């Protein structure tokens, strides 16, 4: 599944404008003769010590701090140098750091406001220059610069200062508690000597040819065709990476991707978009889909506020969805088993946003599939059956009598599993007397900004349908999604409470979870929030997509990591 740097919104493909920008940049670079004059690698086949990785689209940059498009991290982790990353179980492990700072080892002060990172001794960048604690400090300076173009919410603004008492130690002092301190430098350290001014970060030459502390360095970038990487001679792990050369080949056509895997011409296949049985049959014993339940949680977002009233706030209530009984009826109308077995097979049912990680909650579905109950609730809510089977208002609390029970499902285009789900929902809703229409828009419209008039931000929708995820440290995302103060308005245009849900108990729970570092206490707060969400239905969680990629049978040493990218452990990959 596609992932995004900004972890809580589905970003399955780069927005069209971004794609165009990439195209223009590509043309410009081509015109300037930017690609190396070395021979092109199209048609190049795998040799000893060399693997081909299929990517469906080209990253615009390898600087993860600019990564709106999910593809960037998938490639960039091969050249990135984080201090620590989450492993496949969600536990952080040190990479460039000698150890994880904790209260026990003295790396973290008892009030959690000071964190001291110790680097491994003898680290070098790929150009041979030493990697020091000053590079950690520079990363903070660069990323937190208001004009750096950073899009990742990593809490850099909470840092008051970074001291570097010696070349190996960086002592970070926080202005306020940052529960996510371990993921602070998860997207890599930037070299002060080989980048540029923070305010010019978007234009750094480094972005496409990074001086790396990761396992690989970019050898050649053939725009529109491939990115060729070779092993970083200064990588900190002795003898690693095991594979000398990795070629990321850009192949947009799914049929061509499968054919390459089936012929053994490629070794790794990012985002195959196919269920396992079918994928494995198609690649004819050459490879297999390696997958685990992933982060992407397919969700219906109900708008509790009246759309198109010129007011992005929570009042007045939505004429149809403002009534909890209608939302409950919708929940009862959905055949959840059919969706995960037949509509989108290979997905895992879930009833909560807190479906994985250390904060996982065992949430039961409050309103299971029961069309009879759905009909009864709609009757009770003042929606009576009309002549064509679709209900009309007769005494409904927020709708004028005679209003048709008609809602629009808003998704984004060009993602077939989402369209299939919507089409199935239209039929399920019709059975209980709800007319649903589908309006899917380009990704850039749905996920546009408040200033651009995105319907999601202005509250001009009935039900949004898309998949979201929670990061390993979810507090910032939860605050911006469920707090009543996170409703997007002109004053708070980046708020993500698009359902316009106002619940004082939820606010209390979220603030309580944000005020402690006790994981058990936080989890308890999140699970009570999960219960509230499942009961009040500002949103309805449906299922998790699997996460994974196609891997050649000749490849070993990899671990699929729902918290990481395809290349998070590329230094461990081996080719027979």
């Amino acid at each position, binding site marked *: 599944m596609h992932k995004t740097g900004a972890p809580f919104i589905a970003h399955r493909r780069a927005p069209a404008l971004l794609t165009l920008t990439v195209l223009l940049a590509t043309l410009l670079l081509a015109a300037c003769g930017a690609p190396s004059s070395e021979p092109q690698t199209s048609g190049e086949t795998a040799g000893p010590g060399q693997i081909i990785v299929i990517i469906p689209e080209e990253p615009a940059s390898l600087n993860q701090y600019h990564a709106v498009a999910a593809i960037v991290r998938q490639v960039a982790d091969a050249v990135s140098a984080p201090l620590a990353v989450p492993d496949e179980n969600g536990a952080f492990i040190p990479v460039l750091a000698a150890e994880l700072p904790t209260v026990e080892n003295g790396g973290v002060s008892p009030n959690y406001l000071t964190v001291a990172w110790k680097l491994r001794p003898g680290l070098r960048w790929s150009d041979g220059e030493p990697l020091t604690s000053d590079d950690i400090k520079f990363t903070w300076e660069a990323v937190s610069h208001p004009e750096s173009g950073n899009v990742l919410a990593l809490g850099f603004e909470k840092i008051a200062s970074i001291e570097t008492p010696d070349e190996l130690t960086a002592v970070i002092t926080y202005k306020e508690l940052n529960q996510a301190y371990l993921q602070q430098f998860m997207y890599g350290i930037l070299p002060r000597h080989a980048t540029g001014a923070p305010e010019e970060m978007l234009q750094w030459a480094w972005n496409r040819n990074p001086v790396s502390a990761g396992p690989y360095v970019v050898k050649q970038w053939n725009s529109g065709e491939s990115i060729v990487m070779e092993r970083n001679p200064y990588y900190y792990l002795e003898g690693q990476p095991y594979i000398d050369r990795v070629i990321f080949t850009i192949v947009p056509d799914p049929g061509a991707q499968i054919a390459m895997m089936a012929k053994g011409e490629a070794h790794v296949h990012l985002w195959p978009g196919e269920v396992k049985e079918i994928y494995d049959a198609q690649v004819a014993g050459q490879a297999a889909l390696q997958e685990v339940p992933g982060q992407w949680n397919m969700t219906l977002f109900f708008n509790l506020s009246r759309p198109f009233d010129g007011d992005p706030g929570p009042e007045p209530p939505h004429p149809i969805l403002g009534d909890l009984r209608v939302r409950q009826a919708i929940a009862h109308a959905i055949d959840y088993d059919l969706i995960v*077995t037949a509509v989108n097979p290979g997905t895992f049912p879930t009833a909560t946003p807190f479906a994985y990680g250390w904060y996982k909650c065992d949430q039961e579905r409050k309103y299971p599939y029961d069309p009879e109950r759905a009909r009864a609730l709609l009757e009770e809510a003042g929606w009576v059956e009309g002549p064509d089977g679709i209900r009309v208002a007769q005494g409904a609390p927020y709708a004028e009598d005679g209003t048709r029970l008609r809602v629009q499902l808003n998704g984004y285009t060009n993602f077939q599993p989402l369209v299939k789900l919507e089409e199935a929902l239209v039929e399920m809703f019709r059975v209980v007397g709800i007319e649903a229409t589908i309006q899917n828009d380009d990704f850039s419209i749905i996920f546009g900004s408040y200033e651009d008039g995105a319907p999601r931000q202005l509250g001009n929708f009935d039900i949004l349908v898309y998949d979201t995820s929670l990061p390993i440290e979810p507090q910032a995302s939860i605050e911006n999604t469920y707090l009543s103060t996170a409703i997007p308005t002109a004053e708070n245009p980046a708020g993500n409470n698009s359902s316009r849900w106002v619940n004082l108990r939820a606010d209390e729970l979220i603030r309580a979870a944000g005020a402690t570092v006790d994981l058990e206490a936080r989890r308890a707060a999140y699970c009570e929030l999960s219960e509230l969400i499942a009961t009040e239905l500002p949103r309805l969680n449906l299922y998790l997509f699997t996460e994974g990629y196609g891997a050649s049978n000749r490849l070993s040493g990899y671990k699929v990591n729902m918290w990481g990218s395809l290349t998070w452990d590329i230094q461990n990959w081996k080719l027979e």
Partner: protein
Amino acid sequence: MSELTVSQALTRPGRRTMEAAPLRVLIWRRFLRHRLAVVAMAVLGLVIASAVFAPLSRYTPTQQNPTNALQPPSPQHWFGTDDLGRDVFTRTLYGGRISLAVGLSATLLSLLIGVVVGMVAGYFGGVVDNVLMRITDGFLTLPTLFVLILIATLLREIPALGLVSGVIIVILVIAVLSWMWPARIVRGEFLRLKQRDFVTAAESIGAGHGRIMARHILPNTVSLIIVQGTLMVAYAIITESGLSYLGFGVQPPTPSWGNLLATAQTYALRAPWLMIFPGLMIFLTSMAINYIGDGLRDAFDPYSAR
């Protein structure tokens, strides 16, 4: 040899046997001699009839059975089933309603705008030509994707568009983005033909601009316009599905040949029937219209051997 109008051609010496019949009957007779065109007419008639009588199918186009998804063609489902177990035969028939409406209407509208602009520009020349052609060039240089995203964004301000208004928007968008090609072709022809003797002759007997354009020059450009039109029908049908990617017009679950094809891409290897049948319908329709155009051109052409 100078060009002749159809009526002049049909009444010149040597064709006296035709004098008795009215022009449209003559054209019709000539058309019937073009065998392929007649067959094409029958095929197009069948395609249109299949769309009109789609409700006679025993399934509805949105009736789902997800547990019976992606079944190959069988006696129960002649064209197989799609990814939600819907009957592809029924969806293809219903899809024809949208696609034919969009393809034919958008083409007609585009030709109407293009022919009028091209006629006026080519006939009057000078400043009028310059202004109209610069406008045409302006439309040709519009960055289509940006314009479409802009329109889609503006449309988002409207609460809910019904299917009919959605289809009308698609027709308008396709016509607005494609009238420039017929305009340039017609203008070129008018520039060429207005120098001919028959135009001078018409002017000398006091014919007005409108009459000269419509009755004397335009009939001589009909063959080119028809060829352009036949190409545009298939273009419009395919463009409609491209537009739905941007959120215009025909949204699922309403089928159109274009969006049936777009969905089929995902299953190209596993369920090729999803692609074959709507593809075949687009192919048949375009070919039929093409041959009908061919027949009409010959029927209108006074020098045709038929």
